[in-house]
Structures are given as C-alpha cells and as structure tokens.
C-alpha cells in the first residue's frame, strides 16, 4: 500500500518538475493576413519566424477570407494574445471584429503595423488613430497632416495633397531620432537599410505618436526631399503600438525583410508593444552607416558559421564572418578563461591545412592582441610559411615582445 502512494508521490513530483522545466515563451502573437496589395504569402510566415526567433513569442497566423469573401467568419479572439501583427490590407473586416480589435487595444493589447498595413481601412477612424500615419486608399488632407523632419525639427504639414507615395526602390539610410526609447536605445544612429520602398507623404492624425526614426527621401532619386517617418510608436487607450513602414516583401523574402536592421527593430518593437520594455540584446549584425547587412534565412550568424567561413576567406569575399567574431570577442570575453575559449577555436583554424592563407592572416591579426602563450607554437610554425610570415611575425612581436 505504502509503495503505491510513494510511487504516486514520486510521479507527481516528476510531473511537476517536467512542467517547470518546460520554458514557455512569454508572449502569444497573432499575425493577421490574408489579403494585401503586397506578397502576404511570402511576408507572414517570415514575420512568424522573426518573432519566434526572439524566444519570446509563440506566433500564429490568422488568414481572412480572400477578396470578396464573407468577412463575418473572420473573428479572432484577440484577447487571447499579447500582440497582434497586421500584415493585411484589403476588404474591411466586420463591425464585430473591428470592435473586438479596438477593445483589445484599449485594454492594453500590443499591436505592430507592418509596412502596407498602413494602407488599410482609410475610413476606419480608430484604426487610423492606432496607426498614427497612413498612405494610399485615397487618403488626403482630410485624414490628417503630413509629418516629417526637416533637419532636426518635426514638421506637421496640413497642406493639401495625396497621402502616401514612394520613389523607385533603393537602399537608404535610416536615422534614429530618439536614442533613448527602449526600442532604439543603443542602436547605431545611422544605418543602411536593405533595398526597400521608402514610404513617403504618409499622413494621419499622428496623435500620441512618436517618430523614432526617419529616412531621407532624396530628390535625386525622385523623393520628397524630406526625412520621412520609418519607425513610430503610438499609444491608444492602454495599448502600445509599434508601426514600421519598412519591410517590403519579395517572394522568399528579399533585401528589405532580410535586412538585420528591419528584423531587429521589428523584434524590439514587438517586444515593446507586448510588454512595454525591451530585453533583447542588440545583434552583432545590426547594420550601420558603413553598409547594408542582410541575413541568410533571417538568422544571425553563429560562432560556428564564423569560424568555418573565416577558414574559406579570400581577399574578395565578405569579411562579415571575421567582424562577427571580433564583435563576439569584444562583447562576450569578460575573463581570461573566456578569451582562451575563443583562442582555442581560432588555433584550430590556424592548424587546418584546408583553411585559406587570407583567413589565417585575419586570425593572426586578432590573436596578436587577445592571444596567449597557447598560440605561440602554432604561430611560430606558420612563420616558416613565406606567405604567412609577415602576419605571423606581427602576432609574435606582440605576444612575445623582446624586452
């Protein structure tokens, strides 16, 4: 008898441990899509991937009926979610759904408006209050003023004219206007965004809205000559809204969505909208003024990627794997032991006969400052190789200075 109770006790205990070990994500997200003048079939699964990569979100995709379909059957229970992402632009939802969505935001639900979501529902007042700014759909001065920056000043411009335009797609620089907001704090102030549509002439109520970042629409490329809003936050009721004008989707993604800057600001904006704070670290591959930074499979590089690719480096190839390694060393190696962990992996590449000379030279340069006695024998051997002699001697001069 006692054994049975003991077994039950142990089993319950085990189950309890199992449940506590299963780390559930913090937030549930719903991506609303199904109609768009953009390639929603490409973008919505990518947005799901991007959200889930943070480890903070479980994301589901809800598709409306196609154009002309019966919207009455589209009735998501928004209250189940912490975040709703709008990747939709098409037929109006039902009044019931609209009201449910407004309730959701009023009660503190987070929202992310993604790219052409700001083209939607020109007649739905609440939606436009939430989005802050919008374009197309016959929007005009009746929908609110233009908002943009000229130098450092925010201009609120009520002039008559169409809402929404963009010149030919191109890579462009984004400038952070608010360097203190949790979403943008610590990011490079200027960064190159992947080839995208530079949304311009957005107009709207812009209430309780903050423009976190802008992009200059150069007249040379047919742009407005203004610094156009790219990343915005809006407060509505108890809800927090993050609005990104970036991220035009091509089949399979494309440079705008593969841009590490788009991905990271989307992820940070999503966390902020869901929780009011941003706990995510700034990724090593966040772009800066020097150039665009595109991800493969929307994923950050791993240390393994870095080392493998460095071993294949030739002088015309990308140095991004090496600079990624440098960022890791700089940010993660707090102690001598941690530096040695990196050093050992770098020595492996130096010892690999299949690794390229140019790759080894990069590593020798880095080891010259952060290496130790551990590297010296390998480097001495490489110094016997004519092609690596200079780089090896550079490293040895630092690691073993003659006093």
């Amino acid at each position, binding site marked *: 008898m006692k054994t049975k109770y003991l077994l039950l006790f142990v089993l319950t205990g085990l189950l309890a441990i199992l449940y506590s070990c299963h780390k559930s994500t913090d937030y549930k997200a719903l991506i609303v899509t199904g109609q768009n003048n953009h390639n929603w079939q490409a973008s919505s699964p990518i947005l799901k991937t991007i959200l889930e990569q943070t480890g903070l979100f479980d994301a589901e995709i809800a598709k409306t009926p196609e154009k002309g379909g019966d919207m009455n059957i589209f009735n998501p229970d928004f209250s189940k979610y912490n975040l709703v992402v709008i990747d939709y632009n098409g037929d109006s939802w039902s009044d019931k759904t609209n009201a449910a969505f407004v309730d959701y935001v009023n009660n503190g639900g987070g929202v992310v408006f993604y790219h052409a979501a700001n083209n939607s529902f020109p007649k739905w007042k609440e939606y436009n209050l939430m989005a802050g700014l919008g374009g197309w759909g016959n929007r005009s001065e009746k929908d609110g003023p233009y908002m943009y920056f000229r130098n450092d000043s925010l201009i609120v411009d009520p002039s008559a004219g169409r809402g929404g335009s963009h010149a030919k797609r191109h890579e462009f620089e984004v400038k952070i206007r608010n360097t203190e907001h949790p979403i943008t704090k610590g990011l*490079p*102030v200027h960064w190159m965004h992947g080839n995208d549509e530079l949304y311009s002439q957005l107009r709207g109520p812009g209430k309780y809205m903050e423009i976190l970042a802008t992009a200059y629409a150069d007249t040379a490329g047919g742009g407005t000559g203004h610094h156009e809003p790219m990343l915005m936050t809006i407060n509505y009721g108890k809800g927090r809204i993050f609005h990104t004008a970036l991220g035009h989707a091509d089949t399979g993604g494309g440079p705008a969505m593969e841009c590490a800057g788009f991905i990271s600001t989307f992820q940070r904006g999503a966390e902020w909208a869901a929780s009011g704070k941003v706990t995510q670290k700034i990724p090593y591959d966040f772009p*800066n003024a*020097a*150039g665009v930074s595109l991800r493969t499979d929307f994923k950050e590089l791993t240390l393994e990627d870095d080392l493998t690719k460095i071993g294949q480096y030739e002088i015309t*190839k990308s*140095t991004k794997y090496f600079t990624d390694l440098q960022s890791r060393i*700089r940010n993660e190696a707090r102690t*001598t032991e941690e530096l040695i962990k990196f050093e050992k992996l770098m020595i492996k590449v130096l010892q690999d006969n299949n690794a390229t000379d140019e790759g080894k030279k990069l590593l020798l*340069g880095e080891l010259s400052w952060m290496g130790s006695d551990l590297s010296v024998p390998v480097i001495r051997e490489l110094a016997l190789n004519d092609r690596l002699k200079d780089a090896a001697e550079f490293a040895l001069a630092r690691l073993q200075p003659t006093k």
Partner: protein
Amino acid sequence: MRRTATVATGAMILPQIIPSTAMGMGGKLPPSDRIVMGAIGLGGMGTGNMSNFLRQAKDVQFVAVCDVDTKHSVNAKRIIDEFYKNSDCRIYGDYRDFLEKEKLDAVTIALPDHWHGLIYTAAANKKIDIYGEKPLARTIHDSQAIVSAVKKNNIVWQTGSWQRSVENFRRGAELVINGRIGKISRVEVGLPDGGKGIGTPPVTEVPAELNWEMWLGPAPKVPFRGVYHGNWCWILDYSGGQLTDWTGHHIDIAQWGLGTDRTGPVVFAGEGVYPRDGIYNAPVEYDFLCRYADGIWMRVANASRLRFGMGTTWYGEKGWIHVDRGDVLRSSDPNVLKEVIGENEIHLYKSNDHHRNFLECVKSRAETAAPAEIAHRSISIGLLGEIAMTTGQKIFWNPEKQEIIGDPVASRLLSRPYRLPWNLPTI
C-alpha cells in the same frame, strides 16, 4: 639662419642653393636669413601647409619636397618653382635621402599616421624643426618616441592642431579655466560620424607614379586596391578613423580648457560601431567615457549622439560653454561670454596664425601653440578610447607612468609591430 654655416662663411657648398632672389630683390631678406624649409608628404593637407609656408616669402625659402607619389612631388615642385620663378626645387622619393642630403632648418610633414613614428623621429634626430600633422602618432608608443626625440634634440615642434590659434576656441577655454562656469563636472566632445564604405575593391595594378612599398612602410604588406590618398584614414592599419583624425582638434581643446593638457584621464570604457564588411574597418560610430583623477568625466562620441553635435562642451556648476568651428562660442548664460579675464588670472597661449606661430618660434626658440607633449596627451585619449572599444574592457591608465594598469592584453595595443626591416627603437 643658425644652421647655415655655409652662409656665415660665405662659402658655397652643394647642394645648398643660392636662389636668384638672394640678390636682395624687393625687400625680401636674403636667403641666409630665411628659414630653409622642405616638405614630406604633398597630398591635400601637405600641399596646403607647404603653400601656406611658401607664401611667407619674407621668412621662408622652400628648397625641396619628398613624396612616394611622383605626381604629388612634381606638382609641389611646380608650385614652388612658379613662386620663385626658377626651377630649383629638388624632389625626393625616399625621406631618408631627403633628410640626409638636404640641409634644412625646418620641415613640414603631412603623412598617414602609420608613418609618423619613423619620420617624425628621423627629422627630429636631424635637429630639424617640425610642423607635423596630427594625430601625433598611430600608437601611444610611437607618440612617446616622438615626444622623446623632440625633447632630446631640442627642436621646435608645432602640431597641425590649428584650432589652438583660433580666437573662439582660446576664449572659450580661457573662460572655462578661469572658472566662469564654476567647477567643471563633465565635458562632451563631438567628432564626426563615419560614412558609407566602398565595399571590397579588387586588387589592381599599382600606378606608375606610386611607390606602394614605401607608401606602406612599416604597415602590413597588402596588395594595392586603389585605397590610399585621402582614403587611408578608414583603415585601421593606417589610422583610427574619424576618432583619431579629430582627437587633435576637439579633444585637444577640451584638455586646454580643463588645464589637463600635460596629463590625462585615468579610466576609459566605451563601444565602437564597426563596419561589418569591406576594406574600411575603422569604427563609423563610437562612444566612450573617460574620467580624470579629480572626478571630471569626458564623453567622446560621434556627433549624432550628442546634444551639441560637433565640438567641445564643458559643463560646470554655473552652466555650460560650447565651442566649434565657424567661430561658434556659446554659453548657457550669454553674460559669461562678456567676462573680462583679469591680469592675475590664467591667460592661455595667444596665437592668431598657426603657421606664422611656428615660424616665429623657429626664430625665437620659444614653445609653440601646440607643442609635442600636448599633442601626445591629446592623441593618448583617442588611442586609449580606441583600446577600450577594441577590447570591450575598462582600461585603467596611469598618466604619470604612462602605463595601462593590470591588463597586459590591452597593453599590447599600445604599439603596432613594424614590418621588417622598419623598426622604431623604443625610448
């Protein structure tokens, strides 16, 4: 001039020139009384400096130029010959020949940072007075060697930190050092943002006029890819980027106002934003804090991150003072700017013309507006900030002993090994 013994005895020793203007034309002094000058490095900056000195016709006789790019040296010779209406200016491709064969009183030098250690010390060891471009050097060890050589040889040195000869900077620093905004708690220094890279250009043929091997000198040997004049400053082998390029301006001014320009901060920490890809690897954004022993903080960052953008801003108990190019001198209290500095108060070095100041000091042997020691202390701040950013560590610095405390790994970054056969003996 004091070195031209030839002139004192009247004897003519080749290759010393006696220009036609020696016949005392037009009120100009005979060359015996003029400062005999040469130039090393005739790119944009170098030609500008050379032209400035050339125009000081009463005081200067320009006799020779040296550059690894014959297009540069030929162009410089053309300017000089046209000025003197002769064809006497001599050209060299190797600074060692130039220093060996020419008998100069002074030289103006404008070269990529990685060459400063070798060439500044070589010129100093020839006991030639030097107008040298900032930053003083690429590394702290090189910088120390230069200060040491200048001192040992007792030469006159002027750093190209020309803001020290501009009124609004001097006035701003003087108001600060005389306590017009009270005790200073912190300083902000804004230097330029970096820009878009050029990707990875292919290896290409070295142009006929360029000696690439000599252009590289002690820097690592790399194939030629068309990145040299004007663009070397974005590559860490040659320069620390905008940070080290501008340290000798706005950080130098910050120290002037604090009265710390012969010492420096004791701790450094910060972050850089580095290009992910391409041949340019100098940080395009940077943000570091350093603190002096008495508690004053200084933040150095790219201008986009700062309230006042470019320039220097001192914050004191009673307000702030901001200075920048274009005669910018502002204060939280405009009345502060009207303050008169009393006779018994601190009066900072007054110079109204940086190039003329050098020439006057060559004659008088007085210290210039921007002497080597001060230039060394300025660039040390930029370089220690760079070390903090490169290692991701907090750097503790002893400004008296000039050592990094307790971090032998970071200490390796105080110098860069020279590619053989180049060698700069340690002090």
